[in-house]
């Protein structure tokens, strides 16, 4: 397809260079990482930036580190980097599962976690994981760096707290101090690559703390704190799960769109909650299974 839009292209080698370009072109520049979103947006005239700054060759982003206690993934990290990281899979299964559910290999080889988070679409698969792990987003501008809690990151569909003069450096996560496990459940229209009709991340700790976050069922991904409050400190029982499920209708406010009706989304949110809680408890106790099967494949 031909582009009716032309732009100027820059490929900085350092963060300082990238930031100075960003300052120079102010609101006219868009950052290009994997490009799997931006290329489509430019083709379809949804984005018409006069300047594109390719940050893939920036060599001085702080390095990624993965340990069971903490994790830092820099802006160069692709989804394939996450999917192929055995230690990450073990320590942060929810994040791993979310990354694996994004598109397909040929996209994951290119698309970055940073680019994805900055896209801030409502169906953002990794958002529930980041919300459950209380991630911090690290950004830099020419006047310095700052940390933004993931809970303050999503403003509205496709809008984040990151300013136009800032570049995302990476995200960090500190794991809960006690034994914990997580799971990401994604409901799509079929088993193959799809955008989520609904997504749920569930994190559980050995001291019975629960964290729940939904995506694709509201304008931005969110933590279901009211439901967490009902669960916290309690052992999972059928009754407890029932009372948690009963809260879904008041907690989740989805819309009807091409991918799903509002009614089905609400229904699925309940099913996900029940199955997610049961599955994550099993996983905490050492069970091994493929989360893609939890909702019927």
């Amino acid at each position, binding site marked *: 397809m*031909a*582009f009716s839009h032309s732009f100027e292209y820059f490929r900085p080698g350092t963060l300082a260079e990238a930031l100075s370009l960003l300052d120079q072109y102010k609101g006219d520049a868009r950052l290009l990482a994997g490009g799997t979103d931006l290329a489509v947006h430019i083709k379809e005239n949804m984005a018409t930036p006069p300047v594109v700054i390719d940050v893939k060759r920036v060599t001085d982003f702080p390095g990624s580190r993965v340990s069971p206690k903490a994790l830092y993934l820099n802006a160069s990290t692709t989804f394939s980097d996450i999917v192929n990281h055995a230690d990450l899979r073990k320590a942060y299964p929810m994040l791993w599962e979310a990354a694996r559910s994004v598109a397909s290999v040929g996209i994951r080889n290119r698309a970055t976690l940073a680019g994805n988070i900055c896209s801030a679409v409502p169906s953002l698969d990794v958002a529930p994981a980041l919300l459950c792990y209380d991630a911090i987003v690290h950004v830099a501008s020419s006047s310095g760096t700052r940390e933004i809690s993931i809970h303050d990151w999503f403003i509205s569909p496709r809008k984040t707290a990151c300013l136009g003069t800032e570049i995302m450096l990476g995200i960090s996560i500190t794991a809960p101090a006690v034994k914990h496990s997580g799971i990401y459940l994604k409901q799509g229209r*079929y*088993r*193959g690559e799809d955008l989520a009709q609904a997504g749920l991340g569930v994190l559980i700790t050995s001291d019975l703390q629960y964290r729940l976050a939904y995506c694709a069922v509201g304008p931005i991904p969110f933590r279901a704190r009211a439901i967490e409050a009902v669960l916290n400190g309690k052992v999972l029982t059928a009754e407890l799960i029932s009372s948690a499920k009963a809260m879904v209708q008041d907690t989740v406010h989805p819309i009807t769109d091409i991918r799903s*009706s509002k009614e*089905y989304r609400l229904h699925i949110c309940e099913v996900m909650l029940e199955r997610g809680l049961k599955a994550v408890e099993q996983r905490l106790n050492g069970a091994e299974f493929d989360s893609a099967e939890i*909702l*019927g494949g």
Partner: protein
Amino acid sequence: MTDYRYIGKSITRIDGREKISGAAVYTDDIDFGANLLYAEIVSSTVAHALILNIDTSEAEKLEGVVKVFTGKDFPYKFGLYMKDRYIFAQDKVRFYGEQVAAVVARTPQIAKMGAELVKVEYQELPAVLDQMEALAEGATILHPDLGDYPHVPWFFPKPGTNVAHWRKTRRGDLENGFAEADHIYEETYEVPRYAHCAIETHVAIGKFDYSGRLTVWSSSQSPHTQRNLFAEALAPMGLSQKDIRVITPHVGGGFGGKAGVTMEILPAALATKLRGYAVKLRWTREQEFINTYQRLGVVAKLKLGVKKDGTITALDHKIYWDAGAYVEYGANVVNAVGLSAIGPYRIPNVSIDSVCIYTNLPPGGAYRGFGYSEMLFGLESHITTIARQIGMDEIEFRRKNAILEGDKTAYGAAMNPNGLLEAIDKVTKAIEWDKEYKSTDPNKVIGKGFSLFWKAPAMPPNASSSAFLKFNEDASINLIISGMDIGQGYQTVMAQIAAEVLGVDPSKIRVETPDTDRNPYEWQTVASHITWSSGNAVKKAAIDARDQILALVERVYHMSQDSLYLEDEAVKCHNQASFNLPLRSFVVEGIATKDGSYRGGPINGRGMFMPEFSSASGDPDTSQGGHPNVHYTVGAGALILEIDKDTGKMKVLKAAEAIDAGKALNPDLIKGQITGGLLQGLATVLYEDMRYDDKGRLLNPNFTDYKIPTAMDVPDEIIPIIIEVPQPDGPYGARGVGEHTMLPAAPMIANAVENALGIRIRSMPITAEKVAMAYKKHREQ
């Protein structure tokens, strides 16, 4: 059973090396040099409107724009069966996405920028987006001039209404039939529109040279039909068939979508006003969704009467088709099903009304199955239900009523030989129908679904095929034919037929994609008729060549032709084992005689086939009296479906499909059709559908939201079964199977869902969402 050397063998495809190495040339791969121009189409942004004004001035000012065209430049009609559409919209647009103008420029980018600068002023008219609304009293009429449109004699338009064609089939006495019934069941079924989704979008390049010769390269199933339609449409410009050449390289998938003429007319027409240039138009995926043929939408009202013992006494089948803004091709889908909506059953009293209705949605047209999938969704759902209602096993019910050789079809002709009962038995056995399937997962249930299917090629009675065959010096062969290998393996099978007759290995036979200047006539590669029809022509061409060879040998060696045969690239003799005359020694150069002169010369075969028994001249009110369909291909399918009761997610654990190929010329290729066709059919029922908003705008014109199956979405197991009850007039007994393989998919799923959950879903698609919500409601009641 005859022992064949190449027929019935799973020969490796002759186009494999080309396609797997990346060498295969598709239309978009051809380079045209420096004088190539690119066209971008300005499309209607409303579903129904008068065009008040088109302002092209800004686009014309853009540097690099060569010319801007509108409907005024081409006031010409075209169409396959009914000439109801113009090359570009004239005074009116009738669907969102219809071509209104074209910008031709030096680069695709400039063309696109130019198209964005063309301003079209519309006066909107009420849009009719639903066929039942279009039928209603006082509906907006889309084509006030319907009475003036030229059409084939077997169409019956109703001027002054939105009914473009009404196929009526009447047989027996319907009232009596229902009176004889012990049980009558009535229901309505709905099927939405679907998109073909060949991975290659439509693309065509037109070039009009300074001598006045038009060449069109196109990705098409129909090179000769395209040439003919171009010639008809462009006749006012003085072009005849001889001045037009259509070249069709490899096609990246067809499924009916590249049959006839859709967007190809645009670069062909544009080129005629730009002498010396080549003009290229390639549809984007979005345009592919919006402005090519689509599968028609259907509302079907079924009423079936049965006796206690399961005998069907009467069928009243009313099918209302959403055929779109232009029905030049789609009306024949309506016609075909109107002749065949009894399904593969023996029914004495029948009334079928198949009604082709104009709507302000994109034109409907051929889609693999040609209307039979839509019809069978209702009919086969209905059959399973009615069998259950009278307490009869659904397989037994189908066996009892299955149409057999000699039974009368709906239009009164005798049914061809077929293996329907064998198909039922083999599928039942392969799927272990009587086995109790039970899920070990408490969230899941398992259901079984069954369906029969049938389909006949829908063709004009005089649709024909022809073939040329020429020997080369080394006894290799060029087989020159004009069917398209759209993936089904046509070239390979035609090579096998020629190989069998001539005793030459298929690997020594080259079959190229067609060029209407050099290749002989073929109607089109549609209707699953090509193996049968072109196969007959190829066989005749090979026999013609063989006869020339044997006559020559008889003349030179004074041996009786009856004693001679061809094998291993040589002429051999039944009576004289030592006689072995290699073909390579004479098929081009002739046979040397003692005096040094030669006899014979290049061997070139010619063959032609037309089904001379076919006739479309049945009675307009009853369809009795003609022989519109050459034969039906039948089969049966069954599947085991696992359903998650809460999420509605479904997985096909096992599917079996049996199809009566008459004779499997290449069994692996038929199995390939079953594996591929069944998945395409399952996708139409499980997740695909075209969704329009209330303005007639498609909401999912991309693969992000029009979901076609991925490698993750295949059934766990597919058991392909080939039945062989020969077709008497088919090459080696063969008949077509290409479309049929997807036909049983939708009713099998609907039947399996009912079997598992006790809920009957009567509208496609049967998505996870629909199943989950219906089951939730069912449980709450």
